[in-house]
C-alpha cells in the first residue's frame, strides 16, 4: 500500500480539451459517436519551434501544461516522466517510407525528432527544466507501468513530479498493424502525500493473475480505452474528476493489475 497525491490534472481526447469538458461529459452521461481530438498549440512551445513540433509532441505538451497550471507548481521544478506506446508514430512512418528508397534523402530534423524522448525534450527545452526526465513504453500497459515508475521515483526522491501519458495513431500503412483510433493524452502532477494540495490515492499491486481492468464510465470512449494505450488512463482520470471514493484497476504488465484507490 503506497499513498500519493494528485495535485494537477490535464486531459486531451476526442471532444475533450480539458478536465471541464470531461466533467461535463460525465455529468450528462454523454453518449453518441466519438468526436475528433482537437490538438492545440501549447504556449510552452516558442514560436520558432512551433513549425517543427509534430501533433504528437503538441498533444503531450498540451496535457502537461494543463496539469502543471492546475498544480500551481513551477514547470522547471518538476522531474519528468513521459510515457507513450508509439512515441512519434507519424515520423516513424515517414522515415520508413523514405528508407524503403535508397535514393531518397533522410531529413536530419525528422531523424532527430524520431527519438521516443522528443516530447520530453521539447518540454524540458520549453520550460528550461534540467531535472531528471525519462521516456518509457510498455505497449498496452504503458500507463500502468508509468504510474508504477512515477510512484517509485516519488517515494525515493520525496518530491513532486510530472507524469505525461500520450499516444497519437499511426498514419497509413502502419495504422493497420497497430490501430489506435484517436489521439489521447493525460497528465498528472503527483506529490508525496504530505506535500501539496489535491486528491489522495492509494496504490497497491495485485498479486497472482490479474483482475479485469476497470473500463471507462463513458461508454462512447470504451473502444478508445481498448485500443489507445494512453487512454488506459481514462478511468483513473474520470475518478479524479468526479472526486468520489472509488477504485480503478489498471494493467501494469501483460498479466497483472495494480489498484488505484481514490480517497478524496
Amino acid at each position: 500500500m503506497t499513498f500519493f497525491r494528485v495535485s494537477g490534472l490535464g486531459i486531451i481526447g476526442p471532444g475533450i480539451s480539458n478536465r471541464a469538458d470531461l466533467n461535463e461529459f460525465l455529468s450528462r452521461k454523454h453518449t453518441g459517436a466519438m468526436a475528433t481530438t482537437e490538438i492545440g498549440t501549447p504556449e510552452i512551445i516558442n514560436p520558432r519551434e512551433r513549425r517543427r513540433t509534430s501533433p504528437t509532441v503538441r498533444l503531450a505538451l498540451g496535457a502537461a501544461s494543463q496539469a502543471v497550471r492546475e498544480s500551481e507548481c513551477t514547470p522547471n521544478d518538476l522531474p519528468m516522466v513521459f510515457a507513450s506506446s508509439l512515441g512519434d508514430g507519424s515520423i516513424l512512418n515517414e522515415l520508413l517510407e523514405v528508407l524503403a528508397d535508397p535514393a531518397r534523402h533522410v531529413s536530419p530534423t525528422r531523424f532527430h525528432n524520431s527519438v521516443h524522448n522528443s516530447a520530453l525534450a521539447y518540454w524540458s527545452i520549453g520550460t528550461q527544466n534540467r531535472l531528471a526526465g525519462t521516456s518509457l513504453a510498455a505497449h498496452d500497459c504503458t500507463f500502468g507501468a508509468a504510474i508504477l515508475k512515477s510512484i517509485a521515483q516519488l517515494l525515493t526522491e520525496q518530491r513532486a513530479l510530472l507524469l505525461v501519458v500520450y499516444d497519437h495513431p499511426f498514419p497509413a500503412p502502419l495504422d493497420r498493424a497497430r490501430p489506435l483510433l484517436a489521439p489521447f493524452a493525460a497528465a498528472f502532477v503527483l506529490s508525496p502525500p504530505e506535500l501539496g494540495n489535491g486528491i489522495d490515492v492509494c496504490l497497491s499491486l495485485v498479486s497472482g493473475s490479474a483482475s479485469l481492468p476497470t473500463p471507462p464510465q463513458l461508454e462512447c470512449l470504451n473502444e478508445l480505452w481498448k485500443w489507445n494505450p494512453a487512454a488506459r488512463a481514462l478511468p483513473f482520470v474520470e475518478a479524479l474528476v468526479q472526486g468520489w471514493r472509488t477504485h480503478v484497476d489498471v494493467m501494469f504488465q501483460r498479466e497483472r493489475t495494480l489498484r488505484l484507490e481514490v480517497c478524496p
Partner: protein
Amino acid sequence: MDPLALSAFTVTSALGRGLAPTLDALLAERSGLRQCDFAGLSLDTWIGRIDGVEDEPIAGTLSTYDCRNNRLARIALRQDGFENAVAAAAARYGTERIAVILGTTTSGVLAGEEAFANRDPASGYLPANFLHSGTVDHYSLTDFVARQLGLHGPAFTVSTACSSSAKVFGDAAELLHAGFCDAAVVGGADSLCKMALRGFTSLELVSRRPCRPNDATRDGISIGEAAGFVLLERASAAPPNAIRLLGCGNSCDAYHMSSPDPDGRGAALAIRAALADAGISPQDIDYVHQHGTGTQLNDRIEDAAIASVISTQTPCSSTKGWTGHTLGAAGVTNAVLAALFLAQGLLPRNLHLDQSDPTLQCQIQQQTQRRSIRYVLSNAFGFGGSNCCLVLGITP
C-alpha cells in the same frame, strides 16, 4: 541510493559474445570495427557488427518476436551464466518479484524497414506477416526478454536515445526502494538498421574511418550494436565482494534536440547527481568510463564536464573505438565494461588515440594499466539532452 549488487552481468558486442572474448579483445587491443558491410548499404563508414545474428532466428513459442534486436538480446542472455543466475533469483524471490527494465532506441525497426520495402504495390499495405508489436514496437525487447526468462514483475522499456540503457539502473533502484520488486533485470539492446546508419549520416555525425574518441582528428562516430544485461539485487543479498551500483544521476540539457549544451552544464549536473546519490566525493572516483562518442563537440563537452566536477587528473577513456557507438545499448555496454574493469583491476586505453587533442583537459589513458580500482563513473548522454551517469564500485 541503497547500494545494489550486480549479481550477474554480461555484454555481447562487436568485441564478442560475453565477457571472456570481450576481455581478450581489450587486452589484445583488437577493435571490433569493420568497414560497413550491413544490409547492402553502400555507406563509407565503419561499423561494429555482431557476426552470425542473421543465422539464429527465434523459433517456437516466441517466434512472433523474431527480429535482429531480439535475436541479439537472446544471444546475450545465453552468455556468462546469466539465465541461470536469473532462474536462481526467481527461485528465491518468485517470478512476480523480479522487474525487467530495458533500454532501446530503435527496437526491431529493421523488420519495419523490410516490411516497407515489400509493400503491396496496388494497396500500399504492408505484408500480412508483418508483426509490429513483436518487432518495431519499443516494448518488444522487454516483453521478449521477460517471456524468455519467465519473469512477471514490473516491465517497461526506457527510450531516451543514447542514455536509455543507463537510466534503467536508476529505475530498478527506485522500484526496489519502493518495494515493488526484490530484484531487477536491467540493460538493453540496439541493433544495426538503416534508420540509424542513414539517419546519423544525414546529421553528418558519422566518421569515414574507425571512430577516434578524444583524438585531435576525431570526426564522428562508428555505429555499433550490442546487448547487455545485469541482474540487480539488494547488496545485502549478495557476497561482500560483488560489484555494486552505488549511484545514478540524471539530468536534461534543456538546450536542443540533437546538439548538446555547448557548456556541458547538463552533463555536469548528471555527474554531480550521481556522486551525491552514491554519497562519495569527486576525488573518490578512480576512473571515468566516458561516453566518448568521437564527435568534436561531444568529446569536448564531456571533457569540460569531467574537468569541472571530477578533476583533470582522474584517468579517463572511451571504449567506442572497440565497440562502436551502440546507441540505446551504450549505457549498459559502458556499465558492464566498467564492472569488468573493477573486477579485473583494469584501466583500458583509449583506442585509436594517435594525436592527443591539446584543447582537452582530462587525463586520457594512453596505455592499458592493471591496478586495483574502487570507484568508476560511467557516462551516457543522448539526443534531446538526456544525460545519465552511474557510479559503480567494489569493496577491495
